[in-house]
């Protein structure tokens, strides 16, 4: 059995080497923290699989990204991985790849195509889940009752709207929990600090804070500390599992944060692309689940 497995893996390795698969990758931005993790994961997995990778930086410019894709097609790469600058521009990209019969994988950001055709896939996390995980954990912390405030990200940003909607959905299912205040702090720690200060003085009894990201949750924690309230007595939630967020979880100030798996997305993108190159069928949506991070499991994320 073991021998058979060895022989099998040897053939796989051999065939991969023989083909010397080339994959073109275009990323929205090279200097974004999270996207850098995704990019590193793509590079690592590509290396492990013996794939030649060509990375391009679209510098947040949709026009540039389209030209990069056209260049990949002209070079006859075996597959293309796109982290879209603007998700509403993806139908055009899909069309180009399909016409050239080159497999295409979107990573991290959900394309706005009505339906992805065969040989085109999306590898990413379902944004609708992160707020839900945060909300459900806060409900547990609140033991099903109390007033909470919601700190939103930038109001023009889909992630902020989705995460807020998730929280509202969870709260709606728990009649004893009430959202007493809801406002934007633009993902920003300082703005969140000021906002929380204002809420504290408004005199509402607040038992919890649901922030759209960790930075704002930390702003709330700082404001509470300065107002002489121990954040540990409150139920505070964030999303992102940033290094600072995790250390607040370790301190017990942040009750929950949510981890988006950059490594999983990068690896998943390479896997999907290679499968399609080999002619295997890939589901049009490969879900890389969000992961809930609390005091019980934060240590495993410290190194990620």
């Amino acid at each position: 059995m073991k021998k058979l497995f060895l022989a099998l893996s040897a053939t796989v390795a051999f065939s991969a080497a023989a083909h010397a698969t080339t994959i073109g990758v275009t990323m929205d931005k090279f200097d974004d923290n999270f996207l850098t993790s995704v990019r590193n994961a793509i590079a690592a997995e590509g290396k492990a699989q013996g794939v030649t990778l060509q990375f391009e930086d679209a510098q947040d410019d949709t026009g540039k990204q389209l030209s990069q894709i056209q260049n990949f097609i002209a070079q006859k790469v075996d597959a293309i991985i796109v982290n879209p600058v603007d998700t509403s521009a993806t139908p055009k990209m899909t069309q180009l790849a399909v016409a050239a019969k080159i497999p295409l994988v979107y990573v991290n950001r959900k394309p706005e195509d009505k339906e992805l055709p065969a040989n085109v896939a999306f590898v990413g996390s379902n944004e609708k889940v992160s707020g839900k995980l945060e909300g459900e954990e806060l409900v547990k912390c609140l033991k099903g009752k109390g007033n909470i405030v919601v700190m939103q990200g930038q109001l023009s940003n889909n992630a902020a709207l989705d995460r807020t909607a998730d929280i509202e959905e969870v709260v709606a299912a728990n009649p004893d929990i009430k959202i007493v205040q809801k406002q934007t702090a633009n993902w920003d720690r300082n703005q969140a600090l000021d906002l929380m200060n204002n809420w504290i003085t408004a005199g509402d009894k607040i038992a919890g804070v649901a922030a759209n990201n960790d930075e704002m949750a930390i702003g709330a924690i700082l404001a509470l500390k300065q107002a002489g309230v121990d954040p540990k007595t409150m139920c505070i939630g964030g999303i992102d599992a940033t290094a600072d967020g995790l250390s607040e979880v370790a301190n017990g100030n942040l009750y929950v944060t949510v981890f988006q798996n950059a490594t999983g997305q990068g690896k998943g993108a390479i896997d999907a692309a290679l499968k399609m190159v080999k002619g295997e069928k890939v589901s049009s949506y490969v879900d890389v689940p969000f992961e809930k991070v609390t005091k019980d499991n934060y240590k495993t994320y410290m190194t990620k």
Partner: protein
Amino acid sequence: MEPLSNTLAAPDRKPKRQRRLPTEFGILAVLIGIALLFEALGWGIRGQSFLGNQQRLLVMILQVSVVGLIAIGVTQVIITGGIDLSSGSVLAVSAMVAASLAQEPGYARAVFPSLSGLPFIVPALCGLVIGALAGFINGSLIAITAIPPFIATLGMMVTARSVAQVYTRGQPISMLAENYTWIGSGAVPVVIFLVTAVIFHIALRYTRYGKFTYAIGANPQAARVSGINVNRHIMLVYTLAGLLSGLAGLVTSARAQSGQSSMGLGYELDAIAAAVIGGVSLAGGAGRITGTVIGTLILGVMTSGFTFIGIDSYIQGIVKGIIIVAAVVADQYRQRRRRKV
């Protein structure tokens, strides 16, 4: 020096004083008006007092202290007939540099692991020097190459933001030591803001520095002819504005207990708004620190007021924009009517 100061349009000369003093009263009336409006709405909507809450009064000033510090610098720049668009970005660079030198000892991801546990004065001084240096570059560009201040400081705005990002390749700087974060805790930012305001109020009204600043703004040619070293003075004013942006950077990073390259985004516009609301003329030569402080407080009262009565986030900007313009229009109208009388 005697004959010189006599020939200059000193801001505190008797006839001017009679015309100017009410300018601040006008804007003060607007501030009180807005506060009373929220007071009334507060009782109507939330059933509690808006102003009768010491903690809230503190928060109102606290949240605009950083913008206020920048506004004090920008006020002087505007009085010379210039503008400074770089304050927010310079704040970010100072915040990053200072934060990187103020990290707790033994933190694994420190920027400079060997440079932790330094005394407060090191990061503070470095942050201030960086700010002053950026301001000095602004001033030198404007004085020596004679390019418009708008362009020079726009260049600095873009460059400094990028320097802040490059410094740690976008990574935030966390775990700041307590001997550093004290300048951002409690009411300390408010004290720094108000003390700075008093210092520059005195400097502008009662010293040669102030007389030169107004003279250059009112008429640079005349100032030059009357023996003022205009270039050197312009450099000084921009350097001080940079220094204040640096100070704002220290306070911001200490408050957030973190240095981030996106800090202070758009603060320059809030600061300019505060100055303009406070009666500082973009044409140069007129305006005072007291007006700017009141303008800053108007921004703070509005932010707290909106949150207090629960105005939807989506429409806060609309109301804020209208109030800013309306405050200035009302003030202009009132002044024009006075002149006709």
